[in-house]
């Protein structure tokens, strides 16, 4: 699947462009003592009834669970323990250990000490990288002023889709290289909203970095959601 991003420069020119990441290739493989390949498999240790939540529902207290564990093996399901697990479906489970229906979901926002600050309805971030309103390339900041302020946690390379967008991106890369700068990329009408790459995804600030090699260019969109601050 090709993924597009809609970008607009400070002259109001916008273009739908392709972008790509660099998935991490597996570098380390584990083999048995005689050198044969091994695989990882997910197996069932116990069912919900034998889990801590299940035992607590059955026995009522931690002390009673301890007594039950000393006397027998309530955590084991003889028929199912050890079973290979393939696909699972995520769901919510009620205090009666049954699938819950008509659930309400709220978010409790806590500060760094764990103190409750507020409670609110779930706010799901919607993707905004290919909206009708393009992402706006705005403020220029010197690399030397930004490199030690934020953590660049993700990187995507921008790709042109035709000759015109080649020139569009080459010019941006050249300008950023010449000025040894980054261009802040934001969403929304003001271009100040964070970027969200997929529905339900995280919010990031975007910083465009450009380099050139003769007639070739490299434009990387660096994403950050963390500042470099002493804790």
């Amino acid at each position, binding site marked *: 699947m090709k993924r597009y991003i809609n970008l607009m420069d400070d002259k109001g020119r916008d273009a739908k462009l392709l972008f790509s990441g660099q998935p991490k290739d597996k570098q380390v493989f584990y083999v048995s003592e005689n050198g044969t390949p091994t695989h990882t498999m997910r*197996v069932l240790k116990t069912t919900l009834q034998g889990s801590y939540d299940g035992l607590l529902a059955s026995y009522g207290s931690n002390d009673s669970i301890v007594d039950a564990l000393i006397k027998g093996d309530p955590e084991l399901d003889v028929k199912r323990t050890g079973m290979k697990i393939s696909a699972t479906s995520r769901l919510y489970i009620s205090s009666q250990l049954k699938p*819950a229906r008509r659930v309400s979901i709220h978010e409790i926002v806590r500060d760094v000490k764990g103190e409750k600050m507020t409670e609110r309805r779930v706010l799901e971030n919607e993707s905004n990288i290919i909206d009708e309103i393009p992402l706006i390339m705005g403020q220029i900041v010197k690399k030397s002023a930004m*490199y030690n302020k934020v953590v660049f*946690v993700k990187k995507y390379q921008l790709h*042109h889709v035709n000759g015109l967008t080649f020139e569009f991106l080459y010019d941006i890369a050249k300008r950023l290289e010449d000025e040894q700068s980054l261009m802040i990329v934001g969403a929304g009408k003001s271009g100040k909203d964070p970027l969200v790459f997929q529905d339900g995804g995280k919010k990031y600030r975007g910083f465009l970095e450009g380099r050139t090699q003769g007639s070739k260019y490299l434009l*990387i969109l660096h994403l950050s959601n963390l500042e470099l601050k002493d*804790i």
Partner: protein
Amino acid sequence: MARTIKISLNSKVFEPSIQALSREKLYGFIEELVQDEHAKTCIVGALLSDGQTLIGKGCTSLKTIDERGEEVNKSSLKAVDIKGKSLPLVPSVFETGIILQAGSLDDLFDLEVDAVYDFNWEDEAMKKDFLKETQGKVYTFEFNYRSDYEGMNGILISNEEGAFILAGRTLQFDYLDNHIQTIINLPDAVEEEESDMDFAMF
């Protein structure tokens, strides 16, 4: 007492300890509260593919098996590369220490960061000295928190707040010329789920 790392720089040795820097520690975190129709708190679970078995947190385990499907003791496993060549164990920085090498801004911008560490200093004078030595510079080194078979690339930078280690992998992107590129490395379609707060860093 936290373990310290020996950092060698300009014929001096500094010995701070490190702690992971995360969004939770800087901005706080979000907890999900799920209630059923009777306003009772629910837990997150899963339904197995048999359509009847429910599982909760900690109900599954990962096992290593051989080609015959028999479990293999993890302590007997050997690490190899894609060609089957044995890989050496990369020691932890707590054992080897760090020798800082001068790096560049490109080294920093090429690093996809997996983890960030902040320093703890017992000696405030040592902290001041270290920040003075490292201010405005980028250093590179091999970083491995725990001994394993896959070392990471490390970058050390500092600002007015302190010094930080960025650990991750160095990416190498191809420069593009005026041809339509075939894109084979697309970004992951699904991100891991994580609580998030509004991000107002600037």
